[in-house]
């Protein structure tokens, strides 16, 4: 089995079998990390461009490591150093990368739909590394991988995503993915940070985490951005912390094996307390490791790979 599309623009566009394929493929790549030589040859001779219009350390280095461990050549272009600052349009940048015969373009952009523009203009495989408040599909995949590894399944699990859902591409990708895999998804956050008609994506909305905390198998905590306070989306960080912060106290009523995740970077003491972030419940550092494995799987599969190797 192979992926149906040349690009990974969002989990909205994948089906259950494709998600399963990516997760299954990531597992042997993760096993590779325990070896002394962590590099395999499938993408030798391929060029992966990391085109980052937004600052990102975690996602960029994760993709870089994934590409390098697959033996690809990696080119980093970031907004601060590139022609973007000189006012070149995304489409012109795309044409330039096309002319350089890039095989993959991994794009992070502050605006929704930017990866779609690239995908429609150039033949390289486009991987969305986060576009505005639209999707962050590899984050969604690595979150699902993490849950799947810890719980042995996704179907039937109850997963809450807590925080600023409105501005979260991580939330959207998780919702698409988890729903397709048969999990039950809740979103919890201030009413001002719940996007309109999110229920129609197949989630249930709660404003009080305590209402459902006892039933949850997984809680995925989102970063709250202080800038949102200036837009009058919530009155203060301390109020946010009191109502939505994930603390030991709040988790007393949770299941013993509740898994706590966070896509990072964390605001310790605001959306999550340090003691929870560093507890045995937390899979936060493991998510980082899994991110590399999942991104390897994505690049490998988009290159035409299957269980027997890359064929094109």
């Amino acid at each position, binding site marked *: 089995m192979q992926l149906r599309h040349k690009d990974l623009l969002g989990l*909205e566009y994948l089906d259950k079998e494709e998600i399963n394929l990516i997760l299954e493929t990531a597992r042997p790549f993760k096993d590779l990390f325990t070896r002394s030589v962590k590099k395999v040859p499938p993408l030798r001779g391929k060029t992966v461009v990391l085109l980052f219009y937004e600052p990102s350390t975690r996602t960029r280095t994760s993709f870089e490591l994934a590409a390098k461990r697959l033996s690809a050549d990696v080119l980093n272009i970031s907004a601060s150093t590139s022609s973007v600052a000189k006012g070149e*349009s*995304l*489409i012109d940048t795309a044409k330039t990368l096309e002319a350089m015969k890039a095989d993959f373009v991994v794009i992070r*952009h502050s*605006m*929704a*739909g*930017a990866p*779609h*523009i690239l995908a429609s203009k150039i033949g390289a495989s486009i991987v969305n590394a986060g*576009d*505005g*408040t*639209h*999707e962050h599909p590899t984050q969604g995949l690595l979150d699902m991988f993490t849950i799947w590894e810890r719980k042995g399944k996704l179907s039937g699990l109850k997963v809450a995503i807590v925080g600023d859902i409105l501005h979260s*591409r991580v939330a*959207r990708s998780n919702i698409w993915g988890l729903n397709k895999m048969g999990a039950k998804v809740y979103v919890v956050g201030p009413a001002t940070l719940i*996007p*309109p*008609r*999110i229920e*129609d*994506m197949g989630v249930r909305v709660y404003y009080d985490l305590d209402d459902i905390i006892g039933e949850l198998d997984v809680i995925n905590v989102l970063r709250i951005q202080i800038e949102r306070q200036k837009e009058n989306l919530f009155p203060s960080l301390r109020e946010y912390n009191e109502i939505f912060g994930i603390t030991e106290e709040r988790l007393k009523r949770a299941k013993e094996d509740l898994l706590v995740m966070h896509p990072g970077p964390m605001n310790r003491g605001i959306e999550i307390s340090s003691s929870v972030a560093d507890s045995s419940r937390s899979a936060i550092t493991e998510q980082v490791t899994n991110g590399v494995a999942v991104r390897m799987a994505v690049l490998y599969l988009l290159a035409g790979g299957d269980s027997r190797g890359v064929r094109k």
Partner: protein
Amino acid sequence: MKLVIRNGRVVDPKNGIDKRLDILVENGKIVKIGEPTQFRPGDVTRSTVTIDATGKMATPGLIDMHTHLREPGREDEETIASGTRAAARGGFTSICCMPNTQPVIDSVSGVKFILTTAAQEGVVNVYPIGSITKGQKGEELAEIGKMRIAGIVGISDDGKPVMNAQIMRRALEYAKMFNLTVISHCEDLNLSLGGVMNEGFISTVLGLQGIPKQAEEIMVARDIALAELTGGKLHLAHITTRGSVDLIRQAKKKRIRVTCETAPHYFSLSEEDVQGYNTNTKINPPLRTKDDIKALCEGLADGTIDCIASDHAPHLDVEKDLEYNMASFGIIGLETVVPLVLTNLVRKKILGLSEAIAKLTVNPADILGLEKGSLSIGSDADLTIIDLELKKKIGKEFISQSKNSPFIGEELSGFPVATIVAGKVVMEDGKLV
């Protein structure tokens, strides 16, 4: 100079005509309409220019009461010359241009510039609309009276609302003296701030910031209340939501002086067309839902919506080939109004032919007090001939300098085939004469 249009289906809503007739034009005026038998030997001579309209429809010249010509200031996007040619290709003989140019048309000199340039370089009638406030800043009234004397036919800060209700009140009151219609762009800027599409499920999925319908409806309600307060003549531009249609319907029942328009894209496309991030779907107000389309059709059918206007808003490719958030708002429309009305309203039996033509002729003329929009004997010989059966796929061959149309690639039925301004043929078979 004489012109005769033979054997066309003459549809003149003002005079209640819908019949196969001949039209005789002399010295730029309509002099006779009737059966061929009613014509005397001297009426048509060998020197009379004949247009055979057999199998086609002849209507009063179409009027677009909402056009952006971009000149002065953005002649790279459109000029009075190119915009009037696009209008002629689209079947329009008269267009009303919005004042949100650079500089804003907020003074007599601006009005004179438009009229002079249009007389020299235009191919259809151009009626300027002046701004409500100086520089469209929403702070001080523009010299409405002086502009009226210079030739404006309405006032509007279109592109922006007049956010201050007191200023809007004063504008409605003051414009009454001149029998001028105040055209309102209904948008609460605080609610719409940052939005790029309709707020709802699709905006949530696409991760684009939404503009709630209420941003429009709150201002529709406010302006209706102010029209009631002042007795001023209020026209609401580009209405897009069910709530707005309901408010206007109620206001009309209460005999408040309010009229409104919608644009063809609002009944032809919905928010679902934004999927895929095609920036030619980025318009303000935004494309709404299928239910709103239904409400617009109901409003068009029962007369709540008086007019259909293009809201022709030219933008260059460089302003549109961008990330969705960065792209300019607006699409061109002059060259696609007629086929969209005929394909999406008349063929679907939402409007009768005469009702549809009324919304493009006599109704806008009445709202703005133009002596246009009918085929009455003695009136200006502005005519549009339309082939109801002509099917074409919309390509990129617009006469407009800009090509930002979401309808490129769509097959539509019913196109204008001749445009006649004051007895002179300015467009024939889609080509400018």
